[in-house]
């Protein structure tokens, strides 16, 4: 299991206060990702007022508990769901939890990975087990191939738009089908990442040669890798629910409202919906979403800040510049991603295009009281949640793929690549 400083400190503190101990410290990892500064971190580990306590308490508690910690200055520091795969910690067949809703990201490896609260995290640390009801099983099959320029993020937003933010409630979702098999591991992670926005308990993709190839040689992965050939759904297996989607019909998507289910194709018009969503986002039904002016572009988060995401954005940005007045941030998902991106010169592409090139962390996926966008900003964002105020009071968020974020940054308006 993983802990991070925002919710893990509470679990470790409660555990210590009750005089309890971690049953097996080798199975628990802690990482600083949520409120770490992504600029000038050497001098200020966090910009969040009062944030230091979360970091220092997590650090002290992790040390006292004897668990592995990826601290603010660790070369392997990064967002939990980015570094766990990078280090080969998540593996097919594992059960993996963290007090973080996006733990479902790691189901991309054929692990059963899901988010819990701090109390359940404490329970798991102390007992080595969790109590839960067996979830129902749903299969979402993406038949056929994606069109050029359509990504895993668009698949997730398409699913949410079609079946709603509560569509997966009570289910673990297996993502299957030709378009899922064709995704690389980073794409599969993006798709599974959004399962929590679908209210699913978790998501899973059957491990295959792509999975094995990704894990080969990773620090914590076994050598040789097990076959994992039995971790597949039987032919003819029945599910409690099935959804079949024509992958070829999916177009680049963007959110228009205040729930991820409020998503449409970039060339569609804002639909009807709850008044509070239209009021907050400042768009009326019938308006074209393409061409809406933006103030900022954010490329980051556990959804879309891996190397392939940065490459996709850089491919759009190369030789171009963000529109006047647009603030643009690129925040790699981990320090390893940052190093790899710099090794192939992507940092220069971003900087030349007018993006700020930051250190890794969750950053402005959410506003924690530190650094923020200018009040009232409309932001195109590669993140997972467009909730009211998620990126700050009065900030209006439109979630989309990295390519759409980059294209919109250049155009100064919402635009597909």
């Amino acid at each position: 299991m993983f802990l991070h400083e925002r919710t893990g400190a509470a679990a470790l503190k409660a555990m210590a206060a009750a005089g309890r101990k971690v049953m097996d410290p080798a199975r628990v990892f802690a990482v600083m990702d949520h409120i770490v500064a992504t600029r000038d971190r050497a001098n200020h580990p966090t910009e969040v007022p009062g944030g230091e306590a979360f970091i220092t308490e997590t650090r002290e508690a992790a040390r006292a508990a004897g668990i592995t910690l990826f601290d603010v200055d660790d070369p392997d520091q990064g967002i939990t769901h980015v570094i766990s795969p990078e280090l080969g910690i998540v593996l097919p067949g594992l059960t993996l939890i963290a007090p973080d809703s996006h733990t479902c990201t790691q189901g991309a490896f054929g692990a059963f990975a899901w988010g819990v609260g701090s109390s359940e995290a404490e329970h798991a640390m102390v007992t080595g087990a969790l109590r839960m009801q067996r979830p129902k099983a749903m299969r979402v099959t993406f038949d056929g191939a994606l069109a050029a320029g359509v990504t895993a993020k668009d698949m997730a937003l398409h699913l949410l738009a079609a079946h709603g933010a509560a569509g997966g409630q009570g289910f673990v979702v297996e993502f299957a089908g030709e378009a899922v098999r064709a995704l690389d591991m980073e794409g599969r992670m993006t798709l599974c990442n959004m399962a929590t926005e679908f209210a699913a308990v978790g998501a899973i993709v059957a491990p295959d040669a792509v999975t094995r190839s990704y894990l080969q040689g990773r620090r914590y992965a076994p050598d040789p890798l097990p076959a994992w050939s039995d971790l597949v759904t039987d032919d003819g297996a029945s599910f409690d629910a099935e959804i079949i989607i024509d992958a070829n019909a999916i177009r680049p998507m963007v959110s228009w409202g205040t729930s991820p289910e409020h998503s449409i194709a970039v060339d569609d018009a804002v639909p009807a919906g709850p008044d509070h969503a239209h009021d907050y986002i400042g768009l009326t039904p019938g308006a074209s979403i393409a061409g809406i002016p933006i103030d900022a572009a954010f490329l980051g988060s556990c959804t879309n800040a891996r190397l392939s995401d940065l490459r996709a954005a850089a491919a759009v940005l190369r030789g171009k510049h963000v529109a006047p007045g647009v603030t643009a941030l690129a925040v790699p998902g981990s320090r390893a991603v940052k190093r790899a991106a710099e090794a192939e010169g992507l940092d220069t592409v971003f900087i030349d295009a007018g993006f700020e090139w930051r250190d890794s962390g969750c950053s402005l996926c959410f506003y924690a009281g530190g650094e923020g966008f200018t009040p009232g900003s409309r932001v195109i964002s590669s993140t997972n949640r467009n909730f009211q105020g998620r990126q700050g009071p009065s900030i209006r968020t439109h979630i989309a793929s990295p390519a759409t974020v980059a294209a919109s940054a250049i155009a100064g308006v919402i635009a597909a690549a």
Partner: protein
Amino acid sequence: MTPFTTLTSIVAPLLRDNVDTDTIIPSREMKTTGRTGLADGLFAPWRYQQGRVPHPEFVLNQPRYAGAQILAAGANFGCGSSREHAVWALAEWGFRAIIAESFAPIFRNNCIRNGLLPIALPRDAVATLADEVATIDLSGQTVSANDFVRTFEIETEAKAMLLEGLDVIDLTLKHADVIAAWTARDRQARPWVYLETAA
């Protein structure tokens, strides 16, 4: 944990779908590493206007709902972030039960861990109960207001934990031998799962 048996209270209506935990308590309101001091930030985006002046129209600012211990909500209540602070804030404010069309899964588990009873009922039943003085009987699994009575579902174990206010970790530790035996077998079958030491 305080045991939950019966509860009678006015039902404060917040009949909106997809109320997320970022709205229940925004990250910027999570100023403490502990579990207390969070009620002040409860529903901050809706509860306060500029300058932290209470918004008169927001349900929790209306005198009629002062002291309400039951909240009524729409579908997928508590979606989004796993932050248990959302439940701690609701409990610290004084809520002991939430009646909603449905709950997000992590939030629902967090409720049960903290003695906050999540009751899922069809949309029209939630609407009928909203704004009424309702009585919840956990043992009988009913919620009623005037002549209107509905039963609700809850897992046997969650019910027992809520009714008796049990510490779930202590409860699980009673099965420590079973867990240890399973782990030993799994270590044999799948040695690659287990790391020997933290490093």
